[in-house]
């Protein structure tokens, strides 16, 4: 498996919405390469005939009874928010300048 480049790590960090500075990238890229080389050992172990397992104890169609149960009050739901306005989560602008 190929080593992961500094540029690739920077791209992944953008996808994962984490600002990483140059020092972080220099540190992280070689570490991720070592981990990826190690986990790459699994390639080819399982053939096409082996089904994938996503969950150790499979359950399907899990529904609760269709009855109303108490939920959080608006005050409770907003209690941990960094910023609140008019009983809503207050967020920074979501569109760029060009939109």
């Amino acid at each position, binding site marked *: 498996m190929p080593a992961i480049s500094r540029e690739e790590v920077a791209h*992944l960090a953008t996808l994962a919405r984490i600002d990483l500075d140059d020092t972080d990238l220099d*540190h992280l890229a070689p570490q991720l390469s070592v981990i990826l080389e190690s986990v790459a050992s699994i390639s080819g172990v399982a053939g096409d005939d082996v089904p994938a397992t996503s969950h*150790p104890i499979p359950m399907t169609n899990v529904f609760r009874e269709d009855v109303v149960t108490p939920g959080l009050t608006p005050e409770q739901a907003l209690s941990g928010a960094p910023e609140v306005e008019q009983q809503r989560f207050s967020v920074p602008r979501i569109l760029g300048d060009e939109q």
Partner: protein
Amino acid sequence: MSWVHKSAAELADALAAGEVTSVELTQAHLDRIAAVDGDVHAFLHIDAEGALAAAAASDARRAAGTPASGPDGVPIAVKDVLATIGQPTTCGSKMLEGWHPPYDATVVAKVRAAGMPILGKTNMDEFAMGSSTENSAYGPTRNPWDLDRIPGGSGGGSAAAVAAFEAPLALGTDTGGSIRQPGAVTGTVGVKPTYGSVSRYGLVALANSLDQVGPVTRTVLDSALLHEVIGGHDPLDSTSIPGAPAGLVDAARQGASGDLSGLKVGVITELAGDGWQDGVMTRVQESVELLERLGAEVVEVSCPHFVHAMAAYYLILPAECSSNLAKFDAMRYGMRVLPDGVASPSAEEVMKATRDAGFGAEVKRRIILGTYALSSGYYDAFYGQAQKIRTLIIRDFDAAFEQVDVLVSPTAPTTAFPIGEKADDPLAMYLNDLATIPANLAGVPGISVPAGLAAEDGLPVGLQVLAPVKADDRLYRVGAAIEAALEKEWGGPLLAQAPALEETR
């Protein structure tokens, strides 16, 4: 012997007999925390007021002859990854510093309903990512056996709390060994129940398909007691399995009688060899011989795909965690940091700055690794392949449990290592979970019980026992049998050999 040195079962009996009140017990543990936690740092938050109020309510129930449960009034510590009303829940992360959840985790609600005062919240690796508790944003927990060494992780705080006699019981969570490995390196008992048999509602998820809440205690019987309190189906958790665990306490009591005749034990071939500390292997081998003397039949069993478990785990876990931790977006709860030098930052810029400031190095590593494993072009080679390995490991367990009733191995390859030794070597750190990971991938239950001290360093060694899905009772039967037989040899519990901690007042 002071109250803090007694087991939870002994404390429950003393409460029932009116020999002590819950307020006295709770205060004794709060005093012990005040005296030793400056050195151990097992707790991130202590709730003296709440615990004493719950204790007083418990005493009132006992006085009225209406205790809520057997352990009503026995205090407990809770890992800081479980949501608690009235106490902060930080997951060991700056991201959630000061967050007060508006709801209780189901296991916390069950503990409260059983009348057990909650002493406080225990330290952990950030978002449960780690094997040493060094990844906590609030500083490491220290091993009561040697304050310069790690207490294991991610639940090092819960294990150290019971090992240091700061709490008789604690709740932990185990995603790849975070209950069992700390148990092994602190000379305590830890159980990962069958996946889905204990509710995950209110557990801040690391990897949903692997996480499980379980007991952290000093004795096997105490784990069984706590397991019966927290287990059972929960409609709030869609992965919760039907039914409630029963007969665990009975199994522990039966096992303690010391007769294992008719039991077939398999020693896992693949969990031994290079990289396994001699003193660990010696103590485990002796424990296996002891099982034979108690009447068990011991055979060696090969689980050929276990050698791939760690690689599969470090693809599945980062994939799930990168998705789970996407919720820390600086909008609804937790930290919000504005980027430097941006006049009117966008939500995306705020999210990126916040996640850089709020997450530690290991969390960033795993999120990025998971993002990579799930990216198109790599998905089949990595995540898809890891899920197939998971199937092969489940098949290994199925085949093994056709031959034997339980499997045994060391819990961890080494004893507790010095703080700092592996802090910036992720791969070396990941190897600590080599023996515990297969159980999480397959959903089977496991226990770690003290097996003695390694000759070369005098530090605790854990024996891991694994049972088939929903056969958690076997862990308690075998665990209690080995515990009773070893304590007879040692002349008391292993923790009696731990150096006394200096008490400060």
